[in-house]
């Protein structure tokens, strides 16, 4: 019995070769995307843990300016009951270096360690090959290779403090925590002599200490981080310091990868749904076209289930046949995807075959295909043999003659095209859903791309950094109003704000406390619900803290810093990706309730449009030599975003390309089916004197309005609801309100390009009709 059904299934496949090929390609694409996304998700967490073990990554790291409090930090480590071991070594922090990173110029920090230093935790180890010719070497994090294109032996130049430093790249290192540009200054190594030479050139301000600590219980790392941060914060240091637990470091690196993977998976699911819609369409067409065959089978004693089995076999074979090369193709794509991941996490992504991801992808697709095949072929159960044998009469619908030509003011070809369009409800719904879904994906991705590469304001708002031009910190003394006035009086200064970041905690959770005298003047407004704090008893907490603590606006929350606790009233919810969303904001007056002597230390300077930050810093240094440390925030933020640009652009290109391929495939499939089904009709029309061009025009007009409507729906959805989708994808980070800039001309261009592509494809595919002779059509 099954062999007969197998023959039927095989016969269906052979009869509909091109439809089968199109479906094959769709499922293959879906599998490629699904496997890629699933394998990343399944592997990412365990991969990083393995890497950390392999590289002996510490549970907590910190770097801070070497000062008189060093002994206190060491004492803290010694007294913390869960410290397994710790190491402290000298380091150099070049807080702001400018360099080439791929095609862009970026500003970033560099944390430089001595490669010759003996250490147990995270020992110096390069990825081969290593260049050891000469002494003026630098060993960079792997992201510089995979993200910026540097190779071993290349020359690396950077500018720090108006001096240019040039080194030869000796090799690359893998670093799970501070190996990227998005998690603070990336760690680099230099041989002892080179390191010492640099230490001399960069002077005292660059002298830092680098601390690595391992704990006996990984769960206790976060507490150690909290204690260290609070102690560093309490030291009153004005220099940059970073304390990072392994967990927070890894999570920070994963934010972007997870976001991209979520987009990839969402798109993969859209592709799966499209494949399922096509299968459903093919089954409904098959039932209509083969009604009499079904009648004959049933009349000969076949049960409905046996007839359905043939369809199940048909689509199961196509799915398996497509899934296997799909997984193979995904294997070929993985190195590229791996590079994108590596450029975000700083580790070599293993492009090995993931059997679990392959099984999950295949089983998911198969289960979906089987379910949809069974659901779509339900109609077969309701067909009696006699009804099936009389299919010609029973399957037609004569209810409405839509758009009678008698009253139509439209051109004949357009009118006939529209008449066809109005008859094809099921097909129209299929095209509409597919085109709208794909357009939505493309538009959402283009919006994402625009916000990373064009108008970056919204992304920076999400990241949570205050978008000033320059950040200034006094090298010594307190920030008095007259000092601020001096800066304000410099040429090109539009305004200044005060904003500090302190270590604090809520319950036992470490948070960053942002403190200012006036949050209303900030360019980056992170509060999305309620309002920023104004009074000294108020605090705005991130949505993720509120969710974790079960608090809402109007509730009280206890905040601790430097061992002092106080209760504050929640006046608003904020959001930001930076610090994994664990951020709260309060006024300086509010903080003084905990730390009465506290004064704000960080001055944000906003220059007029077009003003050169370098000119400003030179002017500042000339007027107030050695008094201020300046960071070019604008360049630093653009540099950080720049590291994500290639990944976002690649993702957008892939999704747009897949969209065009799939729209082409769908139109090919639909037009091919349409020509086959309407062969007789086209023959009659040709016989009556319609030219091939007339018929092509009709076909195009019968499809293009639906495609255009799909593009319009997808574009509108993309324009208005992309933010909602991104909010869903980022909600785990406490991002609940995204307002990305949408570039209307770009969206219109993309939509027009999609419609134009559909038009061209329709014309080209419809050209097949030229080959069919009118005589052949009529006499067939």
């Amino acid at each position, binding site marked *: 019995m099954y062999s007969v059904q197998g023959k039927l299934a095989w016969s269906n496949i052979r009869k509909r070769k091109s439809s089968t090929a199109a479906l094959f390609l769709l499922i293959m694409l879906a599998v490629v995307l699904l496997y890629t996304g699933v394998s990343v998700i399944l592997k990412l967490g365990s991969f990083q843990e393995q890497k950390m073990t392999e590289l002996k990554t510490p549970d907590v790291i910190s770097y801070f300016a070497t000062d008189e409090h060093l002994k206190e930090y060491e004492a803290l480590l010694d007294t913390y009951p869960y410290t397994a071991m710790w190491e402290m070594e000298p380091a150099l922090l070049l807080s702001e270096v400018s360099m080439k990173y791929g095609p862009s110029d970026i500003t970033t920090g560099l944390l430089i360690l001595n490669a010759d230093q003996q250490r147990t935790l995270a020992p110096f180890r390069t990825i081969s090959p290593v260049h050891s010719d000469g002494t003026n070497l630098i060993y960079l994090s792997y992201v510089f290779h995979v993200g910026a294109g540097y190779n071993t032996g290349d020359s690396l130049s950077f500018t720090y403090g108006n001096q240019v430093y040039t080194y030869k790249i000796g090799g690359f290192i893998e670093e799970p925590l501070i190996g990227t540009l998005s998690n603070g200054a990336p760690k680099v190594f230099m041989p002892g002599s080179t390191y010492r030479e640099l230490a001399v050139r960069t002077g005292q301000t660059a002298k830092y200490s680098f601390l690595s600590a391992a704990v006996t219980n990984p769960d206790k790392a976060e507490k150690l981080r909290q204690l260290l941060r609070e102690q560093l914060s309490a030291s009153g240091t004005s220099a940059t310091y970073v304390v990072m637990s392994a967990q927070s470091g890894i999570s920070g690196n994963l934010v972007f990868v997870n976001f991209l993977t979520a987009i990839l998976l969402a798109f993969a699911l859209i592709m799966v749904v499209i494949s399922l819609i096509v299968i459903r369409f093919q089954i409904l067409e098959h039932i209509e076209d083969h009604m009499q065959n079904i009648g004959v089978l049933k009349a000969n004693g076949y049960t409905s289930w046996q007839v359905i089995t043939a369809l199940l076999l048909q689509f199961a074979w196509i799915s398996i046949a497509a899934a296997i090369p799909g997984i193979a193709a995904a294997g070929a794509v993985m190195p590229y995807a791996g590079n994108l991941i590596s450029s975000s996490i700083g580790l070599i992504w293993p492009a090995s075959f993931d059997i679990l991801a392959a099984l999950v992808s295949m089983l998911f697709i198969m289960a979906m295909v089987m379910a949809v095949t069974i659901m779509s072929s339900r109609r077969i159960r309701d067909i009696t043999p006699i009804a099936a044998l009389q299919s010609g009469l029973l399957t037609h619908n*004569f209810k409405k003659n839509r758009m009678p030509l008698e009253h139509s003011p439209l051109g004949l070809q357009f009118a006939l095209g529209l008449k066809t369009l109005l008859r094809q409800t099921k097909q129209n719904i299929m095209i509409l859903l597919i085109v709208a879904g794909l357009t939505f994906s493309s538009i959402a991705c283009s919006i994402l791309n625009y916000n990373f590469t064009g108008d970056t304001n919204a992304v920076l708002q999400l990241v949570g950094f205050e978008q000033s031009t320059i950040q200034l910190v006094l090298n010594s003394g307190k920030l008095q109003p007259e000092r601020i006035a001096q800066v304000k009086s410099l040429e090109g200064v539009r305004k200044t704000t005060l904003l500090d970041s302190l270590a604090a905690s809520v319950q036992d959770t470490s948070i960053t406390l942002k403190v200012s005298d006036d949050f209303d003047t900030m360019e980056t407004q992170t509060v999305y619900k309620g309002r920023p704090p104004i009074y000294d008893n108020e605090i705005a907490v991130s949505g993720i803290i509120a969710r974790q603590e079960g608090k809402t606006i109007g509730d009280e929350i206890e905040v601790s810093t430097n061992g002092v606790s106080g209760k504050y009233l929640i006046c608003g919810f904020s959001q930001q990706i930076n610090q994994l969303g664990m951020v709260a904001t309060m006024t300086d007056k509010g903080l003084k309730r905990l730390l009465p002597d506290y004064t704000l230390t960080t001055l944000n300077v906003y220059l007029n449009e077009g003003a050169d930050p370098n000119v400003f810093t030179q002017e500042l240094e000339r007027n107030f030599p050695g008094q201020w440390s300046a960071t070019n925030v604008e360049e630093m933020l653009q540099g950080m975003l720049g590291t994500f640009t290639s990944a976002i652009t690649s993702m957008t290109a892939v999704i747009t390309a897949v969209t065009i391929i799939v729209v082409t495939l769908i139109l090919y499939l639909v037009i091919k089916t349409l020509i086959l089904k309407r062969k007789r009709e086209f023959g009659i029309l040709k016989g*009556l004197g319609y*030219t091939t061009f007339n018929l092509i025009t009709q076909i195009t007009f019968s499809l293009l309005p639906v495609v255009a409507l799909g593009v319009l729906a997808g574009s509108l959805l993309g324009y208005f609801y992309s933010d909602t989708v991104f909010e869903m994808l980022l909600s785990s980070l406490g991002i609940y309100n995204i307002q990305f800039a949408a570039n209307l001309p770009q969206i219109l261009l993309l939509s027009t390009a999609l419609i134009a592509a559909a038009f061209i494809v329709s014309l080209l595919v419809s050209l097949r009709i030229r080959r069919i002779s009118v005589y052949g059509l009529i006499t067939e």
Partner: protein
Amino acid sequence: MSEPSKAVLMQTNKLCKTFSNGGVQQHVLKNLDLTLYKGDFTVIMGSSGSGKSTLLYAISGMDKPTLGEILFEGQDITGLSNDQLAVFRRKHCGFVFQQIHLLDTMSVLDNVLSSAYLVQKDRKAAVNRAKQLLTEVGLDASKWMKFPAQLSGGEAQRAGIVRALINTPTALFADEPTGALNSAAGASILGVLTEMNSRGQSIILVTHDLKTALRGNRILYLRDGVMVGELQLSSYSGADGPERQEQVRAFLADLGW
């Protein structure tokens, strides 16, 4: 054989049509020289496979001959491209098919108008003419909005005839127009065609049915792609029934039909 007093509708010179089937060449029309006249009701007869339908589709510009020349009102149509042939057909030819071939997704009126609008710019006039013709062939307004499958075979073929005539074609080509109909419906269709011919419409009809052939005033007999006989008759009036039938029967018998 020719009638010099009548205007020539079309001529074929050395017309050949060869089909290739699995590498085997099948010569269906062989060096056919033929002249058809305006106003005639020409009937082409022949046994199955004789090439009569192939001839009809070739001379109507539906299909291209392999070799030879077709002069339609003096214009050689053999060199026309497919699109030029389509324009030729819409202007000069009307077709009535055995399988009727109405577009089953369109109403009767839309079927007719889909032809009319191709040629006629004045849509209102086209609609009026369509309705007038439909009424003339016996399809009243209640049928105009119906779909082909809701009509009887005879009604559908009448609609087919109206569609063929809507653009006032130079020639009406009919391929076994009664082949799929019962005898009453067939007779009715033949009545319509005879009536149209009596108004001056040139008709070229292919059939293997004697009763249908009786309607013609000229019968051509085709065998193996070659014209082997021709019979001239008076125009059909119905009054000369038995005599006409005998005359045609004898003609066909002579040809071994």
